[in-house]
Structure formats: structure tokens, C-alpha cells
């Protein structure tokens, strides 16, 4: 469990709610099969509220599957998800209104302009009058606001996707390999924006296999290997240099000859 009492005043939550805040997102005996293949095997984990949880793991460890279940786009075969200790149906519209998802797919319409994409997203969330200029400025795209996404580079698209993810001010931000294929400008900008999300109010789940970037941002660390939780700890006690060795040890230990990492 990570300790983050320092951030509490931001939400104005009642004092007696404070202990429950630490519950955040919980998954319990979560299991997901794809035919005979098991992506998640009885995963139990806490993703504490108001902090960034980084999930590491090799390809095929079930990271994306877990994130998709939290985002409500995939049903678990068995098990349940809780929010603040209460049962949660991630497929409910109320939950989708509270989450922001960023993946390596940008979810953008290439023939539309940057501002048009955001405006469309606004309508899908039923937002009253969002400040699209501020959202574009945040990702350094204000000067390209009316250009079509089709003409954007990969980094620019991902920045716009980030703006779209945060446009409706989500409480829960789910990020699936957001650094993949980014140039250094976009990568730094993304990192900067992610740091601003550590306002104690937002629960962030970050999936990556970039160890140093992921660890630098994390409050809480989870390692998934072959569909199981292999490691779970607060980031405070983790030594970055020792962690890489530890991580590779976990991955190798679970590796069966003939199975690609």
C-alpha cells in the first residue's frame, strides 16, 4: 500500500472517507480466458486511489487484458472489480464517463481536424462547454488546431490522443503503452502531463515495459508475468537499479523454454 495522505485536501473528501480512498480500484480473483488460452489467472491486486500505479510485464503477460477489463471493453471470465470497496460494473455508462483511456491506438479520425476530433469527443461525453483551446495548448498543438490529423506525425497524433483522453477530466486514467513509437519531444511532453496527473485526486494506471520511465512516474508498482501478479509494492521502497535485475529475474523464472517472452 502506498501512503499518500498528503494529497487528500484536493478532493474535499470527508475525513472518514480517507481510509477507504486507499482502496481505489481493486480486482479480485480476476480471470480471463480466450478459448484455451488464459490471459489472466486469478489476479488479485489493489490500484490505490489518487496515485499512479505502473504495471510492468513482458508481452503476453495480460497487462492490456487487465486494462481492458478496467475500461469495460472486455468482460472478465471470472472475478470482480471494485471501486472504493464497492462492486463496480466497468461496462456501465457512469463508469465510462469517469475514465480516460490512452493506448497505442489513437482512437482519432484522420480526415477530421484536431479541434474537430476533440469537439466530437466532447459531444460523446455530453460536456457543456469545454475549453478546447486550453486542451490543445496543453499538448502543444494549438497552432495546428485546424489541420487534419491525417497530416500529423505519430508523435502529434499521440499528443492529440492524450488531450482527448483528459478532455473530460477523468478521475481514472488508464494508459496502455503510451510511450510506444514517440519521438523525444512527444515523450517528454507526455511525461510532463502525466506528472500533472499526480494531484492526489486521480487514479492512474500505466502499462509499460519501459522500466526506467515507468518507475520514475510510479507510486505503486505491479509486475504481471504470464497472467499472474509476480510482484506488488509501493514505489518508495524500490531501488531503480536493483529493480531491473529483480524484474528480469521474475520474468525469466516464469519462462518456459519455447515460449517467446
Amino acid at each position, binding site marked *: 500500500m502506498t501512503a499518500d495522505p498528503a494529497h487528500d485536501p484536493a478532493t474535499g473528501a470527508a475525513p472518514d472517507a480517507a481510509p477507504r480512498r486507499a482502496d481505489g480500484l481493486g480486482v479480485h480473483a480476476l480471470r480471463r*480466458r*480466450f*478459448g*484455451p488460452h488464459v490471459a489472466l489467472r486469478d489476479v488479485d491486486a489493489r490500484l490505490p486511489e489518487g496515485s499512479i500505479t505502473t504495471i510492468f510485464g513482458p508481452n503476453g503477460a495480460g497487462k492490456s487484458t487487465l486494462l481492458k477489463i478496467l475500461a469495460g471493453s472486455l468482460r472478465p471470465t471470472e472475478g470482480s472489480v471494485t471501486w472504493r470497496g464497492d462492486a463496480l460494473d466497468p461496462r456501465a455508462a457512469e463508469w465510462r464517463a469517469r475514465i480516460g483511456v490512452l493506448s497505442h491506438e489513437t482512437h482519432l479520425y484522420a480526415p477530421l481536424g484536431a479541434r474537430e476530433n476533440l469537439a466530437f469527443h466532447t459531444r460523446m461525453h455530453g460536456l457543456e462547454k469545454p475549453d478546447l483551446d486550453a486542451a490543445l495548448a496543453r499538448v502543444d498543438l494549438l497552432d495546428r488546431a485546424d489541420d487534419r490529423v491525417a497530416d500529423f506525425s505519430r508523435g502529434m497524433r499521440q499528443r492529440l490522443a492524450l488531450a482527448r483522453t483528459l478532455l473530460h477530466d477523468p478521475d481514472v486514467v488508464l494508459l496502455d503503452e503510451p510511450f510506444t513509437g514517440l519521438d523525444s519531444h512527444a515523450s517528454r511532453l507526455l511525461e510532463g502531463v502525466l506528472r500533472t496527473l499526480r494531484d492526489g485526486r486521480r487514479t492512474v494506471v500505466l502499462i509499460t515495459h519501459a522500466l526506467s520511465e515507468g518507475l520514475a512516474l510510479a507510486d505503486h508498482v505491479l509486475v504481471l508475468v504470464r497472467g499472474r501478479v509476480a510482484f506488488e509494492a509501493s514505489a518508495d521502497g524500490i531501488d531503480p537499479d536493483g529493480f531491473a535485475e529483480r524484474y528480469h529475474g521474475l520474468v525469466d523464472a516464469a519462462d518456459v523454454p519455447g515460449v517467446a517472452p
Partner: protein
Amino acid sequence: MKARTGWLGITLAVLGAMASVGTLWMVFFWVPTERTMGVVQRIFYIHVPSAWVAFLAFGIVAVASGVYLWLGDERADMAAQAAAEGGLLFTVIVLTTGPLWGKIAWGTYWTWEPRLTLTLILGFIYVGYMMVRSAAASPEQGKRFAAVVGIVGALFIPLIHMSVYWFRGLHPDPVILNPEGPTADWEIQATLYAGLLAFTLLFLGLMTLRYGVERARHVLELREAA
């Protein structure tokens, strides 16, 4: 549980097979030849029960598909799949026996007789149902896709039925015929009912056995996954 569906399936199938043999005996040795249509009319004792089973099966597919989508119960999907495969088999029987009869009675293998047309379309829906199941990206998606095709198909069957009847009204067939019409003797009716019973039992037996196979595969998959 599995053993129970196995025994139920075998019992139904054996009863169905016995009833079918009985029906065949009635068809060939007992029932008198229909006066106006002659000996070829005997094919109806196969044709009509098959058509009944084909549509019964599709009803089961639609209901089981609905249950699967609503409750997510894998068993409903297995039942739907089992019913669809049996249903397609009997659809093929209808579409083979129909033209055989038509060639002799009407002098042509194919006419747009509404019931035959409807069965043909039903067959196409079954084929689509099978294809989406196997062509989907994941098995789970395949089950949902198949269920949607089954439900939409069942919703449209009445409208298709009305339209092909209405279409025939515009283009009358050379012979209007009604196998259960006033000329039917009691022997003819009895043979037809025997056929209906036999084929229904046979279908339910096949469906239950197929369901058992699917169920066993599912259990095996779970065990493999564990």
C-alpha cells in the same frame, strides 16, 4: 451432468431411430397410395416432418441465442449451436426431397413455392450463422455474432414468409396442392404424425448428443486452461 446429457441424447436418438424405422414401414407398406398424386406423394412423409424440424430448430436457435446474449450462459450458446447444426441437416433434407417431388409432380426441379422458398432462405440464414461463428476474431465474439444472426434471422422469418406468399399470389403455381387437405385419409394423417414424432425425437437426440460433445469440449478447455 455430462453423463446425463449423454444418456438423454442416446435415449432420444434411439427412440427417434426406432420411430423412424416404424414410420418408414408405414410409408412403404401400410399407408395407401394417395389418389390424385400417386406414389410420389409418399416423399411427403419425410419432407414435411423435416421442414417442421428445420423450423423448430431455428426457433430453438433464436431462443437460446437470446438467453445467451442476456445471461451470458455458455450452455445456451452450446444449445444454439447444436440446434443450428441439426436444423441445417434437416433443411438440406427438405431442399433435397422438395425438388425430387417437384420434378415428378410439377415437371420441374424448382418452383418458387412459398414454403420451399422460405426453407431455402432459412438454409441461407443457417449458413451465415455457421460462417460468422467460425470467422470471428475470437471464439467469444463468434458466439455473440452467431447469436445476433440467429435472433435477427428469426425476427425476419415472419416477414419473409409473408412476402414470399404474397409474391406467389402474383405468380400462381401450376398446381396448388395441400398435403393435409380434405382428401387426406386417416392413414395418411397417422403416417404424417408418426413422421413428425420420429423426426422430432431424432433431432432432439442429435441435438442433445451434439450439445454433450460441445459441453465436454468446454470442460476439457477449462481443464487445459487451469
